[in-house]
């Protein structure tokens, strides 16, 4: 993923943020007043427009004295020009801001930096004031401003001073449910419009696992800098998607891939392949298999792909580098391959709002026989024509010379990610014995292969058995055979023999049999008293489980649990028991058609999960005749 957007979000949100996880509704520290002023200024010497940011935040210690850790982000494009702070009107003597590299999770390197320092609020009622003066060196990097903070905010003003020579658009995002007012004034002295947004009573941002990205949830203003004419000449930023594309394209011109090296490698990879699709797969899978994904971003390099031959030499790269290498290898074999930009499902925007905040990812598009294939080599084990949830249905900007193509990545259904298991079982005392055939497709397959390949190879067989046994020490697997655990193409399959100890309970003449030992989604209800935000599953799910149990000679089926059928537009849960001569067939189907569970649907979800859990807690009864 490209860094800058992440960083821009950090920059937008990180203002006066605290590293502590102690801010909640009843926070000891609150922000009583905050004011962020953004002013567009013209720098004659560089003939460029900059955004001067001046922020002042007042923190109040409500209940008991404690330390406020102040953190401010900056990077190559955003500088901190001045910092000022005081507590109860006095500047603490021993406090000195520290400027340091900031390590972002999952990034090998970025140009993100932080300025941080602790402020002691030394009594109940203490008031700290913190001011930062910053410069954003290019309006393109000024993308969005959030109202919420790590601490609850009583009152916050965000002011944009926009000279008449500056053309921007301010988009109000996620304002519903919040008290946010807006005024527009004209400052005749400076010939500028002054937009003032005032928000009150904004809750602190408390992170929750598996929730939608912040641009979907929190109130903020999306800033689109279109163009400026400060000194008689027009500087165009992102007036339209075409402008944004043109800017991206201007960066691409600086790449000079070594076509000779690429061609040699492409020929080597596709040697012996006569079919186009086989060649395409060979190239795509080679990049997935041989290039390590390393997020490596630095300034403008956050938007500039590394040379394809360099990525090939290093055997590592970020999404841009991997996309560029995929494209160049395909091109070398005569295919029409293009670079593409898109925002993953973490981002709420699309290209209808031209902005650097719109996208955070690059992949390769292949135009072949009238069809567009999207190749994302950062997905290590996802086959051609399979798409990761995070990019499915996302609007995508494809390079097309001086023009561009705007389309969407296909939206796949749950069927892409089939996880299918068929067990044929017999009863042996209190054990179930039998054989199992299982297969996985799409993102289910990718998940398993990814996890297995992070395990040392001398342990991977045991790890796979543990996974297949659902972690149960009583589920013994033997004769395990799998398809290749490295292969990206095709389904992943496994077959094995198993003994599930204690799966049958015997009382008198009766056998009580549990035919489901995985019980996916059992008790997975949401605690509505705690969960505040919508929930996102990582991908759509399609689980099929069939268990055929042979009824032992001399026994009859005396009780069969009731079937279950729940179906709505978001998910289907189905359980059936079919009696056949001398056997019973258990069939379960769990389908998540939509990965998004809105908080408004939590009650329905919880009711349905309760039914599913109840169904799981039913057993088959066989009685001796």
């Amino acid at each position, binding site marked *: 993923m490209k860094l800058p957007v992440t960083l821009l979000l950090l920059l937008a949100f990180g203002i006066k943020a605290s590293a502590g996880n102690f801010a909640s509704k*009843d926070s*000891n520290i609150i922000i009583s007043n905050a004011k962020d002023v953004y002013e567009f200024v013209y720098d004659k010497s560089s003939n460029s427009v900059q955004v001067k940011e001046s922020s002042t935040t007042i923190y109040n210690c409500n*209940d*008991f*004295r*404690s*330390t406020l850790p102040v953190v401010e982000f900056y990077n190559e494009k955003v500088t901190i020009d001045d910092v000022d702070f005081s507590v109860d009107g006095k500047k603490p003597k021993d406090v000195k801001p520290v400027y*340091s*590299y900031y*390590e972002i999770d999952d990034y*090998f*390197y970025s140009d993100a930096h932080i300025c941080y320092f602790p402020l*002691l609020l*030394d*009594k*109940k009622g203490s008031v700290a004031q913190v001011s930062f003066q910053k410069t954003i060196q290019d309006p393109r990097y000024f993308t969005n401003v959030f109202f919420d903070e790590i601490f609850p905010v009583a009152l916050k003003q965000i002011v944009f001073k926009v000279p008449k020579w500056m053309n921007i658009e301010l988009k109000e995002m996620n304002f519903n449910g919040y008290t946010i007012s807006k005024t527009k004034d004209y400052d005749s002295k400076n010939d500028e419009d002054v937009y003032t947004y005032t928000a009150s009573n904004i809750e602190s941002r408390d992170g929750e696992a598996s929730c939608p990205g912040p641009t979907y949830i929190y109130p903020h203003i999306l800033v689109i800098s279109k163009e400026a004419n400060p000194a008689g000449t027009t500087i165009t930023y992102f007036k339209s998607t075409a402008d944004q594309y043109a800017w991206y394209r201007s960066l691409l011109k600086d790449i000079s891939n070594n076509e000779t090296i690429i061609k040699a490698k492409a020929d080597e990879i596709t040697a012996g392949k006569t079919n186009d699709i086989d060649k395409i797969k060979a190239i795509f899978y080679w990049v997935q298999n*041989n290039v*390590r994904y*390393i997020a*490596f971003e*630095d300034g403008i390099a956050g938007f500039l792909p590394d040379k394809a031959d360099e990525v090939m*030499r*290093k*055997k*590592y790269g970020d999404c841009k580098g991997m996309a560029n290498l995929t494209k160049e290898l395909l091109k070398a074999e005569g295919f029409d391959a293009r670079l593409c930009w898109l925002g993953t499902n973490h981002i709420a925007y699309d290209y209808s709002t031209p902005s650097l905040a719109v996208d955070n990812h690059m992949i390769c598009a292949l135009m072949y026989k009238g069809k567009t294939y999207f190749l994302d080599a950062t997905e290590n084990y996802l086959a051609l024509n399979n798409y990761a949830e995070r990019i499915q249905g996302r609007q995508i900007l494809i390079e097309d010379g001086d023009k561009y193509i705007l389309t969407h990545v296909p939206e796949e259904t749950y069927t892409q990610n089939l996880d299918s298991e068929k067990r044929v079982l017999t009863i042996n005392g209190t054990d179930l014995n039998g054989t199992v055939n299982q297969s996985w497709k799409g993102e289910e397959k990718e998940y398993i292969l990814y996890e297995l*390949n*992070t*395990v*040392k*190879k*001398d*342990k991977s067989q*045991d790890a796979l058995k543990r996974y297949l046994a659902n972690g149960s*020490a*009583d589920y013994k697997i033997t004769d395990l055979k799998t398809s290749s655990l490295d292969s990206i193409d095709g389904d992943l399959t496994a077959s094995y023999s198993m003994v599930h100890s*204690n799966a049958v*309970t015997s*009382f*008198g003449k*009766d056998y*009580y049999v*549990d035919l489901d030992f995985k019980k996916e989604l*059992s*008790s997975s209800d949401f605690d509505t008293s705690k969960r505040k935000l919508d929930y996102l599953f990582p991908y759509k799910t399609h689980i099929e489980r069939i268990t055929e149990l042979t009824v032992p000679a001399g026994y009859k089926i*005396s*009780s069969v*649990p009731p079937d279950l059928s729940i179906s709505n537009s978001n998910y289907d849960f189905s359980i059936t028991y079919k009696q056949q001569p001398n056997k019973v067939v258990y069939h379960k189907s769990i389908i998540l058609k939509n990965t998004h569970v809105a908080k408004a649907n939590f009650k329905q979800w919880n009711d349905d999960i309760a039914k599913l*859990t*109840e169904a*799981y*807690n*039913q*057993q*088959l*009864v066989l009685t001796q005749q």
Partner: protein
Amino acid sequence: MRTKFLFIAAILCIVINASAQKDEAEYKQRSQDIQSELWSNPAKEFAVKAIPSTMDSESAVIIATSFDVVNSAKMKMKFGALGFGSVQRVFYQTTFHERVKINDKAALEDYSTIEYQKKLDKSVSVALIKVYNKTTTYIGAKIIKPDGKEIVVNTDEEVLTKDETKNKAGKLAISDLQVGDILDYYIRIEQMQELNSDMQGPYTFFLGGEYPILYQSIKLQLDEKSGVEYITGNGAPAMKEMRDDDDNIILFSEQRNLPKIQSSLFTSSYRQYPYISIQYMFITKGADASTHFSKGEVKHGFLSDALLDQFQKILQSNAVPVNYSAYIKTANYFGGEKHLKDQSQDTLVKTLYNAWRLTTFCDFSTTNIDITNDNNYAQANSLICAISMSRMLRTLGIDHEIVLLCPRNSNKLKDVMNLGDFEAMIHLKNGKDYWLAFNDIVTQFNEIPARFQGEDALTFRPDMDAKNLEYNPMGKQKIPVASADKNTETENINVAFNSSNMQQLQIDRSTTLSGATRHYTQKELLMMEDMQADLATSVNEKKLTDRLADDKKQQKLVTEFSAAFAKEKTNQKSYFEDEIKEQYDQSAKDVSSYEVKDAGMFSSNFMYHTNFTMDNYVKKAGNNYIIEAGKLLGSVTKIEEKDRTRTLDVYMPYARTYTYNISLALPAGYKVKGLENFNKNVSNETGSLTSTATADAAAVHITIKQQFLKNFEVAASWPKLLELMDGLYDVSNQKLLFEKSN
């Protein structure tokens, strides 16, 4: 003037740039020299390109790994405050070199990056005097492809995560590294210190690691003025010791074909796996006279007398700061110092110990209030606290001993290298034996932490009659071990069907923990507010907020501490929810009540009560219900196949007893079947397991007791322990049938 200033600024700028360029050029040149030194003529073990095919199934194979140290000293003429004079410069050159075959993506990920402190300059300048202390790190990496082609990684591709003049940190992603390649890399650290010489190490090398090792070497070449100490633990071979022509000390050790170390249950790494640990120091003229290093000497393999001498000197030094707060509180408790002599020794010591707990763990900052549950986990520095306690006892005229020991999860007593390897307790034996341990907030008077039990300890006894501080070594003694009936968990669990949902169980659980089983859960569930109040009461003090209220200057703190305590209290329910989840490996559906019945701060039992609902323990089968009654005792781990045989002795945490009394209400109209499944009786020399189930008209009663008699068993007893553990696992899987009566 302005022009002149600009001119000077420009000159400075040029000088600085030129200096930086010179530094960079010197760094590059040194990098090349080191590369040439390490790669031009490598030892044959570092030239191996093929590994045995039997190792293809390994994730990675360490072909060769070496740790080399060269240390030397030179005199340097320098201009100082008193004119020209000589200063001593000590040079340390440490090289870690490794050659590894990468066999899978997990290993590729492990070896894909190198992070290092490239430069750290801690030199100090005062006036015209500069005292150097500089550390520079050089790295190198090359890849040997399966066809034998060698590719040197371009270290210029590093990124600097810190880039200051005196502090640079780097990170390098290894380019072109693939599965099947051999990676040969090194990290060289060069340090130069003036007028100072820090101890180097200890560096510890286990003979074996995550991956199999074909060759491992450790080599030190140290200046003749150095002192070296090393130990070879758990059967590791001694190092070869020699002198070169310059009388430098040479120490060398090499091993071949070391298998990888596999993780195993109930082990103590520093007691069971062979390792070498080395530390050394250049002894300067001004070196600390009490140092346990001896110039020009190599000490191997045992706790040195010099180290004990050093401890004795500390004990006898008046310069050691001693915290007498607990003594003052004790005196206050008895109405003043003059009344102390009227008290029995038992009473005095007990009060003093509780006062120590209060002052050590409940001394909250009044500038920054932080009383969250994290504070419950504070651990005392036993060595420092034992010295303070000894001084207070001496002041009270109470004879005692300080005992030094090593916890059973760390190195053996004979392998101690530094004072910091010791822990300490106080032992009083006037009439009755008493132990004072300086551990955590819930450790009680006369309670010995489980990790100390059964260990050999060295004893120092103060001379109570001596005018000056005098402590005499009194030899060794063994720390007592608590029996299984002192470390207990007793669960009284009353279970009923949820009246509105027969597939949910309402569980009313009373838990009593004693001895070593208490500590973790006490710290998890107790509020600091309550603990400090209990400890304060024990020494007749008011709890914190009341104490603050009495002090005019601090009254304003009362509301602040009260607010902080109240805020933390809102988290207590989640701590109980977590405890239930840990016990049952499943979250409770609803925790309707929770309560601490006895905080166990002074009594032998920590008692708490919870009431909650659980899903998934009841299966419906026709008109009947199957109850997974064995699950009610909590989550029980089955010993995996890989752990069922062992050659290593068994370090159990402590001897212990678990008792479960489960009462399961029988719903009207149902009869129970399967009671006999819960009958189990196992007894052997390592412990016992008994399980029985009975029923009356109202309920089923299941009683389970598991006992492990010792905290240590030899490997040969492992099958006996397995009988007990397998037995409980078997019980935990048993079910009952509640059959609808006709």
